[in-house]
C-alpha cells in the first residue's frame, strides 16, 4: 500500500511542509507586528489611549459679588436650569433641532438668535444654553422627551444678575460671553504672566472662562472677581459620554469687591436727575472714596449678560440720549464758573491778587479787538475776591487770566488733576484738555494753529475756551481743595473680600502727593464758597440747610460730547447750556465733595444745585426727600 502511493504521498508531504513553512512565516509577520505595536511603539500608543479616555471638563469659578460700602449686594449670581446644547453634536441641523425642541419648550426668536450667534462665535465647539430659567413644567416635558435629543441636556448654570437693574449701571458694568478677542487677550495675559506651567494653565484655564467683564468694575476687577476655574479630569467613552471622574481640581471662587460707593446715595441721585442727562460724582475727600458715580441716562446691564438682542442694542446705541456713554468718566465739559474758586486760589498762591484787592467791573472786558462780556449787564461794580466767587463775576477772571497767562494757570491746575488721568479704577477714562502753549504746539498741525494767541487766554479764566474736563476730574479737584491740598486717588473699590472668611483687604487709600498751598489762602476760597450757598448763586437751593456747605455754580456752553472738533461758540444755538455745580460739606471738615453736570438744563443754580442739596441732606443728615420713592432692598 505504501509503496505504490509513494510518489503521491511524497508530493503531499512536501506540500504540507511548505504549508507549515508558510504558516510559520505568516505567524512571524504577526509576531513582528505585535512586537512593534506592543513593545517598540508602546509608549506612543499608551499616550494615545490616555488622551483618548481623558477629557478635561472645565468647572467655572463662582464670580465674586459686588457689594456697596454698606454691604448691599449689587452684583450677584443665581442658579437656574438651562437647556444646554452641545454644539458638536448638533452640527449642521441647528434649525431642525430648535424647531423640534420648540414643540415642547418655548423658544423665542431671541433665544434662537442668541444661540446661533454663540455657535458662530465659538466655531461650533462647546456647550451653550439655548433657553435659561426653565420652569418645572418645561423641565418635566423635556425629560420625558429627552431620548429624542442627544446632545441636549438640562443643567443648572450660574448666571450673573444685577438686582437693581439700571442702578449704577455705568459703574458696575456687565459681563458677557468670552469673545474671540477676549480669548486672544487672555491668552497673551497668560503668556506674559510667566506662570510656572503656561500649558497647564491654558488647558484648564481658558475653557473654564465663559464670561468676562466687558465694561465698568466687572471689567476693571475682572481678575479679582473671576477666580480660577477648576476642571474635572473625566474618563469618557468614544461617544464623549463621561464615565467617572478621575481627579478634579476645584475652582477657586472669585473675591468679592466692596465698593466705596454708597448705593443709596447713588440711587437717590439717579432718581433726582429724573429724565435729565448728566453726570454726578461724589467723593470723600479724606480717603478718595467715590461715594456716588452717576451717569444718566443709564441702561440695564442684565440685558447684556447673555448677549443683547439686536433691537435693544440698536435702541441703546442709536439713542440721541447716549445711554451707553459713561459721562462722568468719558464726557468732557468746560467747567464754566466752577473753575473760578480754583482760579482765585491760583491768584492767591501766585500772588497775582490779594483777597481784598478789587477791580471795577463795567460788565465787559476788552482785549485786543474783542469784547468779553459778563453775564450781568452793567457789571458787578466793585468786586473783590470773595464777591467774584459769590456773584460769579466774569470780568474779575478775564483780567486775572490775562495777568496770569496760560502757562501759569496750567502749572497751578495740573496738580489738582485738571486735564489729567485721575487713575480711578475704571477703564477708558478721558483726559480732557488743560491748555498750555506746549499743549497747543503738540496738538495742532499747522504752524499758525500751534501758536498761542493771548486772546485765547482770557476765556480760560471763566472755565471756557480750550478748558474741558471730566466731571470726575472736577470732583477730584474739589476733593483736593477740600482736603487742603492732600491728593488722594479716587477709587470705587474700597476693599477686596474673601468670599469664605469675609476677611477684607483694604485697597488702602494712599496719599498721591500734596499740593503746597497756604492754609490761609485755602480758607479764603472755602469761605467764599460757603458764602455762595448763603447769599450767592445757590443760596436758594441751600436755604435752611442743617450744615454748612461750600459750593459754586457753573454754566457751560454746550458742545458735542466728543469735543475734539469743538469750535468755540459754534454750537450754542440749538441746545441749552449745561448746568454745573461743585460743593463740599460740612465746610469745617468736609466728608463729601460733589461735582455734577445736568446737561442742557440751563443755569446751574436752578437745576444742579438743588440736586446737590438733596444729596447732601441725605448723606450728612440722613434726610430722604419726600418726592423720591424710598430705597428698597432687592429680593
Amino acid at each position, binding site marked *: *500500500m505504501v509503496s505504490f502511493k509513494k510518489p*503521491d504521498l511524497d*508530493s*503531499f*508531504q512536501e*506540500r*504540507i511542509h511548505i*504549508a*507549515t513553512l508558510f*504558516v*510559520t512565516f*505568516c*505567524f512571524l*509577520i*504577526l*509576531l513582528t*507586528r*505585535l*512586537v512593534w*505595536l*506592543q*513593545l517598540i*511603539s*508602546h509608549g*506612543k*500608543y*499608551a499616550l*494615545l*489611549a*490616555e488622551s*483618548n*479616555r481623558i477629557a478635561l471638563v472645565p468647572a467655572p469659578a463662582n464670580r465674586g459679588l459686588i457689594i456697596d460700602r454698606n454691604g448691599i449686594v449689587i452684583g450677584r449670581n443665581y442658579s437656574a436650569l438651562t437647556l444646554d446644547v452641545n454644539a458638536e453634536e448638533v452640527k449642521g441641523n441647528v434649525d431642525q433641532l430648535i424647531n423640534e425642541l420648540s414643540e415642547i419648550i418655548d423658544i423665542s426668536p431671541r433665544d434662537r438668535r442668541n444661540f446661533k450667534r454663540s455657535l458662530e462665535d465659538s466655531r461650533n465647539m462647546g456647550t451653550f444654553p439655548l433657553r435659561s430659567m426653565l420652569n418645572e413644567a418645561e423641565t418635566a416635558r423635556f425629560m420625558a422627551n429627552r431620548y429624542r435629543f442627544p446632545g441636549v441636556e438640562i443643567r443648572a448654570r450660574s448666571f450673573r444678575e444685577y438686582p437693581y437693574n439700571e442702578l449704577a449701571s455705568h459703574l458696575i458694568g456687565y459681563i458677557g460671553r468670552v469673545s474671540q478677542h477676549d480669548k486672544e487677550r487672555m491668552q497673551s495675559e497668560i503668556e506674559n504672566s510667566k506662570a510656572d506651567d503656561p500649558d497647564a494653565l491654558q488647558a484648564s484655564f481658558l475653557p473654564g472662562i465663559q464670561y468676562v467683564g466687558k465694561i465698568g468694575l466687572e471689567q476693571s476687577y475682572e481678575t479679582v472677581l473671576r477666580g480660577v476655574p477648576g476642571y474635572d479630569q473625566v*474618563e*469618557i*467613552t*468614544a*461617544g464623549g459620554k463621561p*464615565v467617572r471622574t478621575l481627579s478634579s481640581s476645584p475652582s477657586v471662587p472669585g473675591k468679592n469687591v466692596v465698593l466705596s460707593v454708597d448705593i443709596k446715595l447713588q440711587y437717590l441721585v439717579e432718581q433726582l436727575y429724573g429724565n435729565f442727562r448728566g453726570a454726578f460724582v461724589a467723593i470723600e475727600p479724606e480717603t478718595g472714596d467715590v461715594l456716588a458715580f452717576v451717569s444718566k441716562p443709564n441702561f440695564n446691564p442684565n440685558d447684556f449678560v447673555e448677549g443683547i438682542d439686536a433691537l435693544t442694542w440698536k435702541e441703546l446705541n442709536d439713542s440721541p440720549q447716549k445711554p451707553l456713554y459713561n459721562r462722568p468718566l468719558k464726557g468732557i465739559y468746560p467747567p464754566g464758573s466752577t473753575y473760578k474758586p480754583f482760579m482765585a486760589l491760583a491768584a492767591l498762591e501766585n500772588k497775582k491778587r490779594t483777597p481784598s484787592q478789587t477791580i471795577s467791573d463795567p460788565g465787559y472786558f476788552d482785549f485786543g479787538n474783542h469784547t468779553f462780556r459778563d453775564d450781568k449787564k452793567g457789571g458787578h461794580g466793585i468786586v473783590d475776591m470773595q464777591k467774584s466767587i459769590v456773584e460769579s463775576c466774569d470780568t474779575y477772571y478775564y483780567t486775572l487770566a490775562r495777568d496770569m497767562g496760560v502757562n501759569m494757570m496750567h502749572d497751578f491746575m495740573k496738580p489738582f488733576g485738571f486735564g489729567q488721568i485721575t487713575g480711578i479704577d475704571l477703564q477708558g477714562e478721558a483726559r480732557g484738555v488743560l491748555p498750555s502753549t506746549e499743549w497747543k504746539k503738540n496738538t495742532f498741525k499747522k504752524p499758525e494753529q500751534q501758536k498761542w494767541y493771548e486772546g485765547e487766554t482770557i476765556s480760560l479764566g471763566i472755565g471756557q475756551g480750550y478748558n474741558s474736563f471730566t466731571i470726575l476730574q472736577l470732583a477730584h479737584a474739589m476733593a483736593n481743595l477740600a482736603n487742603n491740598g492732600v491728593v488722594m486717588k479716587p477709587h470705587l473699590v474700597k476693599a477686596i473680600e474673601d468670599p469664605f472668611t469675609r476677611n477684607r483687604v483694604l485697597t488702602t487709600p494712599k496719599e498721591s502727593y500734596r499740593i503746597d498751598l497756604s492754609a490761609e489762602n485755602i480758607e479764603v476760597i472755602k469761605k467764599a464758597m460757603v458764602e455762595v450757598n448763603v447769599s450767592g448763586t445757590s443760596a436758594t437751593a441751600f436755604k435752611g440747610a442743617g450744615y454748612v456747605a461750600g459750593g459754586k455754580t457753573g454754566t457751560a456752553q454746550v458742545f458735542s460730547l466728543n469735543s475734539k472738533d469743538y469750535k468755540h461758540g459754534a454750537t450754542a444755538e440749538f441746545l441749552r447750556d449745561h448746568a454745573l455745580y461743585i460743593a463740599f460739606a460740612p465746610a469745617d471738615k468736609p466728608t463729601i465733595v460733589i461735582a455734577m453736570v445736568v446737561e442742557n438744563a440751563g443755569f446751574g443754580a436752578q437745576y444742579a444745585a438743588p440736586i446737590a442739596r438733596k444729596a447732601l441732606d441725605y448723606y450728612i443728615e440722613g434726610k430722604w426727600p419726600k418726592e423720591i420713592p424710598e430705597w428698597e432692598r432687592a429680593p
Partner: protein
Amino acid sequence: MGKSPVKKIQVLFFSFFSGLDRQLGLILLGLAAVGLFTFLSASQNTPVQTTDELRNLALSFGVMWLVSRIPPKWLEMGAVWIYGIGVTLLVAVAVFGLIKKGARRWLNIGVVIQPSEIMKIAMPLMLAWYFQKREGIQKTWDYAVAGVILAIPVFLIARQPDLGTALLVFAAGLYVIILAGLPWKWILPFVGVGIVGILLIIIFGNTICAHDVTWPFVHNYQKHRICTLLDPSSDPLGKGFHTIQSMIAIGSGGFFGKGWFQGTQAHLEFIPEKHTDFVFAVFSEEFGLLGNLILLALFFALIKRGLTISASAPNLFTRLLGASVTLIFFTYAFVNIGMVSGLLPVVGVPLPFISYGGTALVTLGFGAGILMSIHRHRRLVQS
C-alpha cells in the same frame, strides 16, 4: 459483571471522549478558555449574555463531537450533495435573498440562514472528493474542472457582496487544489503578481486613493478599506477610526497588558465590534504581548496538529480535507489578527474560537470535528 455505578459512569465518560484526539482537544479547550475569558470582559455593555457564549461553545463542541463520530467515508459520499445544496442555496440567495446592511446574504427558509457559511466546509469537501475520484488518473485539465467548482460559489458569494467569506471559501478551495499537486509553475507566477501588486498599492497608495479614482472590480467601500489601511490617519474619525483605535488598544497593552477588565479602549467603547471581529484588540489590550504569545502559540499548535493529523490520514480525500480545514483555521486567525493589528484591510473574518458568534463557532466545530473524525478513523480505513 457487578460493576459499580461509578465505574459505569467512568466507562461511559471515556467512551464519550474515545477517539477524540487528545492534543487537538486540549488546544481547542485552551482556545475556548481564552475565548470565554476574553468574552466576559469584551461583552461588557453589550446586549450579549454570557449564557449565549456558553451555549455557542457547547453547540460548537456538540457539533464537533457529532462530526467526529461520522466516518470520513460518509462525508466523502455526501460531498457532492452538500456542495450541490450549498450552490443551490446560493443561487436562491441571489434570487430571493434578504437584504441587510446593503448586502444580500441571507435566506429565509423558516429560519434565516447564511448559505455562504455552508460553503466554507462544502468547498473543501467537494474538491477533496473530486481529487479522490481522479486519484491516479489525474490530468492537467482536472485543475481546470476544480477551478470551475471553486469559481461558481466564490462568484456567487462575492456578488452578494461578501468579500470576506468569498475570500475564505476561495482560500479553502485553493488549499485543496494546491495540496492536490497544482504544479509550481502555475502557482509561482500568481504569487509573484500578488507580491508586485501589494507593493504597487503601497507605493502608489496616494495616487490611487485620490477621491476621483475608481478601481475596477471593487466597490467603493472596499477601495476605502484598503486606502485607510495604507493611511489610517487620512480619515481618523471615519473609516480609519476602527483601525486606529484597535491599534491603540493593542499598542497600549504593552508587554503585560492592562489586566483583565482593565482595558480602557475596550471598556470605553473605542473598539468597534469588540466582542466579535475585533475581540483580538480587547485581548491584546488586557493581556499584552505575553497573552498574544500564548494565543499565537495555541493557534500555531492547532495548525501544526491539524497538519500532522492530515499528513497521517489514510487516503487523499481525508488528507486534502484535513489539511484544507486546518489551513482555513490558519487563514481565519491570520486575516483576523492582521486586520485588527492594521496589517490587512478590514474584512468580516472572526478570530476562531475567540470571537463571539454562533454561526462561526458551529462551522469551526464542524471543521474540528472533521479533523477528529479523520484521526479517529485513520486505522479503520487503513486496515
